[in-house]
């Protein structure tokens, strides 16, 4: 973070903002402002260059064709890759998560190159679409409470050696690989299949992104009463038999 302003970049709302994932930007922005940070939010459309000086980049889910278009344009633009080289934090969901990997299967059924910012490869699952509430345990190294979210995807994402599973699901499909892993991360880049939006359901993940961007170990507390009530309700709902 330079000149005391936290720069949030919301990537391609014209293509990847279909499942309410812009809530993730709203939650990070709100929680940063509650800590009295000076926040600038920049929405970057797919005909605009991705700035390389952002602190936190967020990418959401989208439909199959927009996903391919987004991958083409992000590869051509190169800004997000340079931002990661500069140390930026990236948090991605669903279609955005797949784009950050080495490759995924596009709407034409072809293998589409991603950005290679996460060591994952995604394919299309053979089984039923994964739809429903998810409950999981986030990698204990991150020191976060249980993960709650809503998944709605057909993808299966395989992790390579330099990507760590973000969570292990207790309920739900997650990466769809059958081993219970959900999402992936490395030091600065995160990916998940969770909607909800996931940062509204898990505000401490938003705080983790802020701490990484600010390079601090702790943040002043904020009133999490409603988040906690929602979390308790959704965690209980996920555990009820369908």
């Amino acid at each position, binding site marked *: 973070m330079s000149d005391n302003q936290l720069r949030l970049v919301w990537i391609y709302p014209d293509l990847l903002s*279909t499942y309410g994932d812009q809530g993730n930007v709203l939650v990070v922005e709100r929680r940063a402002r509650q800590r009295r940070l000076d926040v600038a939010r920049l929405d970057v459309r797919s005909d605009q260059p991705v700035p390389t000086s952002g602190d936190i980049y967020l990418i959401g889910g989208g439909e199959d064709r927009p996903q391919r278009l987004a991958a083409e344009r992000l590869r051509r633009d190169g800004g997000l890759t340079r931002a990661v080289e500069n140390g930026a934090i990236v948090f991605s969901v669903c279609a955005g998560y797949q784009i950050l990997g080495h490759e995924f299967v596009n709407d034409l059924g072809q293998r589409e190159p991603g950005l290679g910012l996460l060591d994952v490869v995604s394919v299309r699952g053979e089984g039923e679409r994964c739809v429903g509430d998810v409950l999981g345990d986030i990698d204990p190294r991150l020191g976060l409470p249980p993960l709650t979210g809503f998944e709605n995807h057909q993808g299966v994402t395989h992790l390579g050696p330099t990507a760590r599973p973000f969570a292990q699901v207790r309920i739900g499909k997650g990466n769809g690989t059958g081993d219970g892993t959900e999402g992936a991360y490395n030091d600065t880049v995160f990916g998940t299949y969770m909607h909800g*939006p996931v940062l509204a359901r898990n505000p401490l993940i938003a705080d983790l992104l802020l701490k990484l961007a600010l390079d601090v170990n702790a943040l002043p507390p904020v009133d999490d009463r409603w988040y906690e009530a929602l979390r308790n309700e959704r965690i209980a709902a996920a555990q009820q038999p369908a």
Partner: protein
Amino acid sequence: MAGNSDPLTPRAKLAVTAGKAVAAASRAAGRGSGSVIGGRVALKLDPDLLGRLAQHLDVILVSATNGKTTTTRLIAEALRAAGPVVSNALGANMPAGITSALAGGSDAKFGVIEVDEKYLAGVARDTAPKCIALLNLSRDQLDRAGETRMLAENWREALAGSKAVIVANCDDPLVVWAASSSPNVIWVAAGQMWKDDAWSCPSCGGVMQRPDDEWFCNECGFRRPTPSWALNGDHVLDPHGSAWPIHLQLPGRANKANAASSAAVAAVFGVPPQVALERMYQVQAVAGRYDVVQYQGRDLRLLLAKNPAGWLETFSLIDPPPAPVILAVNARGADGTDTSWLWDVDYTRLTGRPLFVLGDRKLDLAVRLEVANQQFQVCDDLDQAVQQAPPGRIEVIANYTAFQDLRRRVGN
């Protein structure tokens, strides 16, 4: 044209009778109108029944993400100037409900039929409509309905083979993309507040440019067609350039847009716009929507909004601050079980209004409003919300099953 030259086959008559008997039994058992179950039984006995019933009618289909029930009512009222109408006025908009509604109107000249977006292609094939009105397409229940652009693609394929006159909103790029496969389109500039499902060109994927009311794609040239009808404030402009005043009891810009599309449809069947618009004034509440009810000594206006585009239009018609607003959201099967869409709604538009939150998913709303920096109270039920609301008419905005719950609660 409509006529009685083709009496129903004995099998079709049996199917109609059996369907009505089952519907009556369902009503008697207190399970709603019985129209869907009755239609299902009838279709099982005669799978071609919908087509046979439609043969005798001039069929008008109405489809959209939002406004189809209301527009169906407006068109039905307008066309009654030209002859008897049968219609699925209660919003049972899938094939069984439609079959059941048509079976009840053997003397009608017109069949004005609301069709669920996902069933438009099939119903258009079965009923050989004279006219199809397409109002808008936007994200709705993504956990079960699939992708919005795929729906437009599905419409596009169906309309390519239809002989119907298409009356379509030229301000919605997805609707234009769907309708332009037909050689016979009447474009209506009905407007559209929600734009977030069409920033990407439906034709080529290019980034859409949207200056003012225009829209176009720089890459492939796909652009807004020139309308022959238009909504202009409180008036409908007809193809001759005459402006006709809209008098509606229904509130809001979206309903004026529905009236403009309805006037264009009525004109296809020879009903002039002034006659059509005058008749539309008779439409009050539609299946409880927009109804003002008295409850616990207070006036409550019941507003249905099911998806981000619907909430956006609804926020534009509610009373200004400090009018109290009750928000109710469920996520049962008919609502879609994913509440993420709440984050595509801009709740900062409610600033200055006392807010009360209800429904199965009130906690999702609470977090949403907290992040939007709004003041709100989470309530156990409607009674508590009404008791705590400051004076003035209370606007109640609810999604589908939450709306049904509220109607039952207030005895509407």
